[in-house]
């Protein structure tokens, strides 16, 4: 369902709910109003009863007077005197006027102290027609409100026809008796009883609509005129209204003079023929529905808030979906690009491998050509392996499964390994290589060494790879105090004078498969994954990677990592006091070595060239106080290390211990150095621990001869149990080991391996190479079983994993199962030999 349809449905539901609330509320309100109107109407009827009772009561008094007067043949004076005696109400009065003259007497004088009791209705159109005065007791004969001619008060009168006797003639004479009540008094008593109808106003009208008694809000002298003035009404309607008012009880709405809608209840007064009681009240005073509006307002606000909230959530989700869709599309494209790139990058070395294998097969009789082809196949295979490793790494990074497996490791070993790995490339490209180690107080750190190596190697190999022959690559590594407690800040900086990078490329260089478009780059093998992996790993380790580059001038990568310090550190290293001369043309290296030596407790004397070193040594020798040790850099301008050694030996003698230092693989210069008289070699970078070990070894006169690279005699006679289910892999490893004089036995799976160990005599095997994924019992299970064997030799035999499960978590898994090392397939025989030696050394 599309977004706007959801909103539309929401709005419709909201409107439906609101409509329901409004309709329900209005209905409730209408019902309440209706009930109130009915109550109002009923109250009006009650008022009519009260009024009727009142009028009947008053009329009855008048009737009693009239009957009495008629029965006694009274004169005007007699009648007035009689009424004056029986009259008790202070504000009421009575008038008797002759029908013919409409003049007569009043019970009250015109003014206080006056003797004038005369009264005349001649100019008041009240008694001109007396047909409305019925016989005594027949009905209520009440007048309209009029001005009392005696005192000027607005009054009403209850009337009766009486017969008087003329004083002079004694003849009967018709007269009208009026019991006169002031209207103000009546109005004060005639108040609506209910509090809720306090704004209601009563009026009484006759059959012409003229007010008998007029409420304040009733206008005009006639109710019908009043109605016509403020309401739309045609003659037919007015006629109907007049009929309705005089004959029935009911209510209707109308506008008052203020334009307010009013409810008007009416009921005829039964006892007073033709009179109607009107009761009017503004509708706004009748309708009490504030609560309903509050309910509507509350529900509306709630729905609106809900709507806004839902809308926001929907929009948010939509946004996320859009982002996810874009990401999915990008990922899809990346996958396509990835496959395309992989297809190309994998096929290229595979092409070389297959092609060269074919060529080699056809030239089996030409060993030189076969050797050359195999070397190229080996190179292509290595590239393919790197590519596969990188792909696996990047896929793990992107799937978020890359995790760290921290171990305690020696940063010295790591750096040495780094130097060793880079040496062949440096040598091959003939570039100037400087590896400067700054302050490195903490040798053992706790981190994922494998990943750290990967970071350092990637950056360094890139620097070497993209630096032209004759160029320079410098590496600086040093420790600083970290802001994180228990950590050191390890800075690794690699600068080269290579081809550099364009700013455009630098923006995307950490993205997978990013390679600079450059003719020089195209000729260099690379997957375009190295930097992406490096960046991810640095991020994973919480570090910072920075790159400064200028096209054509070179690049500097800096990696800063806060690494935890391992609990295990080397004991305090302290040498006996002695004087050591150090010669190096690189001032930074010189200062670093001098600092390292001084921290070991020796006095170091720097020399910036071979010549200066020679002169200083000569001067000391002549003074009879030779240096205890001389350390010379191999590559120095003018007199290099070998030449300086040669001159020292020639001019000073052979006693002085001389250490040669080099950042290069010293295998090539070994012969020359030995010939020149060097006492030993130490490779850059020069760590404090390394200097300590070398100097101690040198002073003990145990100058450790460098092991020849091709001497594998120490491996002769070893017997290794190999648990490997794959026949080819077994064949490869057994053949390779055989090349080094190592015999091997095969166990086709883990279970057989365990069985063999159970049955083996002590010392039968030096170690076990254990594949992991095998039928019946895997390598991990087999290792655990072996570790559980009763025979101490069998249970403690070194086991090295040899598996295609090459990730760090696989390594950790192997170590946790009780293995002693891990070699990833495809196997590098050098690494295998190194691992065997490590195990052997440990054993010894």
């Amino acid at each position, binding site marked *: 369902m599309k977004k706007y349809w959801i909103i539309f449905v929401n709005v419709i539901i909201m409107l439906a709910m609101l409509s329901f609330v409004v309709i329900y509320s209005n209905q409730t309100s209408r019902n309440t109003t209706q009930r109130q109107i009915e109550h109002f109407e009923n109250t009006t009827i009650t008022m009519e009863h009260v009024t009727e009772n009142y009028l009947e009561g008053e009329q009855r008094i008048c009737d009693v007077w009239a009957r009495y007067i008629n029965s006694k043949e009274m004169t005007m004076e007699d009648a007035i005197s009689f009424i004056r005696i029986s009259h008790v109400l202070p504000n009421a009065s009575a008038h008797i006027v002759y029908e013919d003259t409409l003049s007569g007497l009043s019970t009250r004088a015109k003014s206080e102290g006056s003797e004038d009791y005369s009264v005349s209705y001649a100019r008041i159109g009240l008694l001109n027609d007396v047909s409305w005065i019925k016989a005594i007791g027949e009905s209520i004969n009440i007048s309209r409100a009029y001005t009392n001619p005696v005192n000027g*008060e607005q009054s009403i009168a209850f009337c009766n026809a009486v017969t008087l006797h003329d004083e002079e003639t004694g003849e009967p004479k018709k007269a009208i008796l009026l019991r006169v009540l002031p209207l103000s008094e009546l109005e004060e008593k005639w108040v609506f009883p209910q509090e809720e109808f306090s704004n209601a106003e009563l009026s009484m009208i006759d059959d012409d609509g003229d007010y008998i008694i007029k409420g304040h809000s009733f206008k005009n002298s006639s109710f019908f005129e009043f109605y016509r003035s403020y309401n739309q009404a045609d003659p037919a309607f007015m006629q109907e209204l007049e009929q309705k008012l005089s004959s029935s009880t009911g209510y209707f709405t109308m506008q008052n003079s203020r334009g307010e809608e009013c409810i008007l209840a009416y009921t005829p007064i039964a006892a007073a023929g033709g009179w109607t009681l009107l009761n009017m009240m503004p509708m706004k005073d009748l309708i009490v529905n504030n609560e309903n509006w509050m309910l509507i307002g509350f529900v509306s606000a709630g729905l609106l808030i809900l709507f806004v909230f839902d809308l926001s959530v929907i929009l948010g989700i939509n946004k996320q979906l859009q982002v996810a869709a874009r990401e999915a599309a990008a990922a899809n494209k990346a996958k396509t690009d990835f496959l395309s790139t992989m297809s190309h990058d994998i096929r290229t070395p595979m092409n070389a491998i297959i092609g060269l294998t074919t060529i080699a097969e056809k030239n089996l009789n030409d060993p030189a050509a076969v050797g050359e082809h195999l070397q190229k196949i080996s190179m292509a295979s290595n590239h393919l392996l790197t590519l596969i490793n990188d792909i696996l790494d990047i896929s793990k990074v992107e799937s978020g499964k890359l995790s760290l497996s921290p171990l305690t490791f020696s940063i010295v070993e790591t750096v040495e390994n780094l130097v060793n790995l880079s040496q062949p490339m440096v040598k091959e490209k003939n570039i100037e290589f400087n590896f400067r180690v700054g302050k490195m107080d903490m040798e053992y750190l706790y981190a994922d060494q494998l990943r750290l190596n990967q970071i350092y190697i990637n950056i360094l190999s890139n620097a070497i790879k993209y630096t032209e022959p004759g160029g320079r690559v410098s590496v600086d590594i040093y420790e600083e105090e970290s802001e994180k407690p228990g950590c050191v800040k390890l800075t690794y900086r690699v600068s080269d004078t290579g081809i550099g990078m364009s700013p455009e490329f630098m923006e995307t260089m950490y993205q997978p498969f990013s390679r600079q478009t450059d003719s020089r780059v195209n000729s260099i093998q690379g997957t375009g994954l190295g930097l992406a992996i490096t960046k991810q790993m640095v991020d994973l380790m919480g570090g910072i990677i920075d790159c400064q580059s200028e096209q054509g001038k070179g690049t500097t990568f800096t990696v800063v990592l806060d690494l935890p310090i391992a609990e295990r550190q080397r004991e305090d290293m302290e040498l006996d006091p002695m004087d050591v001369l150090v010669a190096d043309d690189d001032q930074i290296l010189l200062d670093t070595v001098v600092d390292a030596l001084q921290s070991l407790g020796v006095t170091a004397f720097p020399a910036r060239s071979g010549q200066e070193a020679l002169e200083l040594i000569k001067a000391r020798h002549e003074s009879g106080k030779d240096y205890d040790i001389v350390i010379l850099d191999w590559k120095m301008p003018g007199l290099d290390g070998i030449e300086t050694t040669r001159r020292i030996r020639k001019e000073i003698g052979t006693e002085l211990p001389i250490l040669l230092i080099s950042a290069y693989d010293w295998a090539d210069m070994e012969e020359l150095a030995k010939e020149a008289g060097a006492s030993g070699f130490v490779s850059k970078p020069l760590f404090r621990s390394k200097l300590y070990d070398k100097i101690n070894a040198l002073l003990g006169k145990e100058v450790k001869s460098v092991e020849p690279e091709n001497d594998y005699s120490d491996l002769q006679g070893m017997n290794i149990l190999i648990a490997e289910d794959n026949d080819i892999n077994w064949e490869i490893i057994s053949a390779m080991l055989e090349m080094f004089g190592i015999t091997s036995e095969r166990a086709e799976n883990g279970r057989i391996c365990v069985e063999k160990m159970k049955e083996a005599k002590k010392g039968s095997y030096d170690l076990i190479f254990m594949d992991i994924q095998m039928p019946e019992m895997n390598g991990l299970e087999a290792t655990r079983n072996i570790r559980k064997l009763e025979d101490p030799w069998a249970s403690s035999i070194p086991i090295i994993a040899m598996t295609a499960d090459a990730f760090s978590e696989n390594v950790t898994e192997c170590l946790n199962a009780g293995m002693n090392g891990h070699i990833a397939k495809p196997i590098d025989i050098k690494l295998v030999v190194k691992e065997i030696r490590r195990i052997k050394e440990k054993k010894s």
Partner: protein
Amino acid sequence: MKRLLCTMLFVLPLITLCACGTAPKPKEEAAAGFAPKLSTEEKCKITVAGSYDNFEALEAEFDRFNKFYPNVQLNYVKLDDYNNVLATVLEGNDRPNIFFSYTWMIGNDQYKPVVAHMEELSDTALGLNLSCIRPGLLNHDADGKVMLVPVFSRTYGMLVNNDLFEKEGQKIPTSFDEMIKVCDAFKAKGIKSPMMGYTQKSSGCFMNTVAYPQFTATLAKDPDALAKANALDPAAGESMRPALGAVERLIESGCIDLAECDKIEDNYTQVILRFFEGDVPMMICTGDTVSGTKKRESQSEAFTASPFKYTFHPIPLSDQGGYFIDSPSVQFSVNKDCDNLDMTNEFMRFLITSEELNQMASMKRLVTPTTDFSLDPVYAPFGQVPAERTISPEVLGITDPLTVQIRIASYQVGKGEITIDDAVKKYGSFE
């Protein structure tokens, strides 16, 4: 498009919510410029007593006053036998705060008790804006005090059916001769009596409506004759001759058909309803009759079926035009001995302004006493009468007995009962 749709869908409930609320009532009109001087919370009762059966225009003013003083209850009370009972009422328990008063009450011994209750309305402390009233309508006593203030004025003229004039291509006459010519033109079109009026009795008859302004104008030019006329001296009879001549000429020239006029049964409702029949170009009547036109528009089936525009004009009795006899109709006096005198004066201060008086006159359709005639277009022609033809009988000093003489004389001449010469001779003896 989607954004627009979403916005509309969002706004819709808001509008619905707004619609759920009660629509604010339009700000009700209130008299501009009036600033209450007393506490607007004050609760009291004010009664206005008068002789009108009903006084809706005044009741409308009560409502307007209640906008400022909502707790003041104002009532209009009609007194039966007003002139005779007023003095008693002013002394009684139901003393009104304001009452109708008439100029003739001043100096009349019978009304001394009434006058004694009148408050001096020209007292500057009251703050009444008497300047908004036309000076000729204000009555000053011997001491220059104003005891009664007019709320309506009365005049004499003729209702003109403007649409009929337009339909017949006639212009409203501005001189006596033009009037005769216009009447001839209408007669030629088949209208039997181009001018009509009430003829049944002398009171309210059209003859007096024609004659009185002319007689007053004649006397205004001759103070001696005026003095004689007031003294009912037969020598003043000659001053009636021009007025009676005008009546006679209108009848003799056929402008007025008496037989047609005799069919009108009363001088108020029937005069109006006859005019609303739509075939009478000019209906001679007083302003009091005009006051009933508005309410009777809906009562006339003919007018409801074919409404037309009408205006009230002075009858053009001279070559220059008609006279505007500017005379107070209803005047208010304040009972200085009433309860709530301060609030009563506050109400008078509210009422005696051009705006409120015009409002009231317009509603009652009587001539406004103010200088501004613009509110009611029916009376607008009187606003154009120049000062020299505007005559105030009260200022001039015309007395009531004089008016009786011209009324009866003009009626009898008009009816053909006596000649003009007889009428002139009989001046002072008409009863």
